[in-house]
């Protein structure tokens, strides 16, 4: 059986990439309240329940801490940290 695919919206910040899936986000807003640098805000895109989904509106403030990923009950968010160590 082919594995189910979810769409993914990806945006790049200074310390990492913010990934969110419109097929998983139910617009609960728990991540928005937990973000320490106030990156997240409602988007014009609609989530899986037809309500405005979350987006990284102020991605330039993102510190890639991963709290939003941790508190998302639907696993809709993924933070990919950039490798900032000098080689």
């Amino acid at each position, binding site marked *: 059986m082919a594995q*189910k695919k*979810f769409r993914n919206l990806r945006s790049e910040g200074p310390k990492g990439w913010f990934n969110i899936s419109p097929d*998983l986000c139910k617009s609960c807003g728990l991540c*928005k309240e937990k973000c320490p640098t106030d990156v997240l805000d409602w988007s014009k895109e609609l989530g899986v329940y037809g309500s405005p989904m979350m987006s990284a509106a102020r991605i330039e403030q993102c510190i890639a801490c991963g709290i939003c990923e941790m508190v998302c009950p639907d696993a809709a968010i993924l933070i990919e940290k950039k490798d900032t160590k000098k080689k």
Partner: protein
Amino acid sequence: MTDHLAMPKSWHVETKPHKFCPGCGHGIALKILGEVIDELNIQDRLVFGVDIGCSLLAWDFFDVDTVQTHHGRTNPVMVGMKRANPDLLCIAYMGDGGGYAIGSQHLVNSAFRNERILAIVINNCNYGMTGGQMAPTTLPGQKTETSPYGRDAETTGSPTLGPEMVAAIASPGAYVARGSIANIKQLKRFMKKAVENQIAGNGFSFLEVLSSCPTNWRTNAKQTWAFVEDEMSKYFKTGELRTPDEKKEA
């Protein structure tokens, strides 16, 4: 396009997005349980039992053998499976109604007999699936469908402190703890220890998770976090109450 973003490997991807309401704490608790299952690599020897109530919406959540039982009877079903096949790892997953109301007898007796299963109770201070009625865990003064003027401790008693109750009667080797979705790293440590306690076969493992119910609390995201972090944790103190080696984390 990605496959499935941040989901644990043990999640059943075909059934996602899952059936819980937006902002429900079940999703967070089950994500942590999924991560623990992945880390301990126990997916093939696990039986997951779900109760009636919102917890039954987890019947197709994991890619593991799952059974849904009668209301409150998840503990005895899991105990039976564990006794018949001690190699299995049995997790009884229920809400506060199944754990502390209709199923409290089974919880108490499983703890008394020191059965080698793990019982996880999700505490969200009301009966979620039936529309937000007063539950044994409803806080004093909290308004629900059946306590519109706030819960009166004079007539309806005080909220049930499940882990304290189980810790008072549990035998040596038991693991009893209470975590909260407001402190996810601590909750994950507790969840992992509880599963490891069953793998080691020390005794009864019990974990209560303070969870959220924005739909029935009628709260927005900010109020939801405030209720979990301030109101609930004031009455329900998180921490370990019993561990096999008696070293506790507050």
